[in-house]
């Protein structure tokens, strides 16, 4: 049983790590701010989300599990605001050029 849980954790966490990789590569390689923004949100939402999913079975009590989920939600919220705002800044930047 515990082996199965550990396997799930490792699988999910490393998939999450993969999305961080995708996000970073996108942030570095994509040509303009808006597409880079697109890459970034992948890392935010999916990368952290998968890591949280992977760690959930490792939680020692229900509070820890709850905290993990709240953390993910908070990062999602922050991500949403930043995306909206950054998109606006980026557009202003591009139209100014």
């Amino acid at each position, binding site marked *: 049983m515990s082996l199965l849980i*550990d396997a799930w*954790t*490792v699988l999910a*966490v*490393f998939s*999450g*790590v993969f999305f*961080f*990789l995708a*996000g*970073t590569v996108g*942030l*570095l390689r994509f040509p303009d*701010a808006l597409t*880079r*923004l697109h890459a*970034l949100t992948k*890392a*935010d939402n999916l*990368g*952290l989300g998968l*890591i*949280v999913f992977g*760690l959930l079975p*490792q*939680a*020692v009590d229900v509070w*820890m599990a709850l*905290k*993990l989920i*709240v*953390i993910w939600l*908070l*990062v999602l*919220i*922050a*991500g949403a*605001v*930043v995306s*909206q*705002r*950054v*998109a*606006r*800044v*980026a557009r*202003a*930047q591009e139209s*100014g*050029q």
Partner: protein
Amino acid sequence: MADLLLWAAVIVLALTAAGLLRLLRGPGAADRIMAGQLFGTGGAAVLLLLGAGGAYAAIDVALTLALLSAFVSLTFAVYAGRAGTRQALGRGEE
């Protein structure tokens, strides 16, 4: 197990560090803020991995971090619309 999670933390940190290049290069404020955001997410992920690896207090730190990075982002959102902001953000490096 704990060791594996620690390695995962190393990789996430390394990846966010690579994202830091965007902070260095800019070219605009938008990119800088994105790099900062990536760092917030990555930092939270690293702390979670440390926490699940045995340092349970790290989860509370990650919680604080997540809440406050939302706060920093929102603050920036409020100020980004105000006068004087455009000069500060500039168009990137000269």
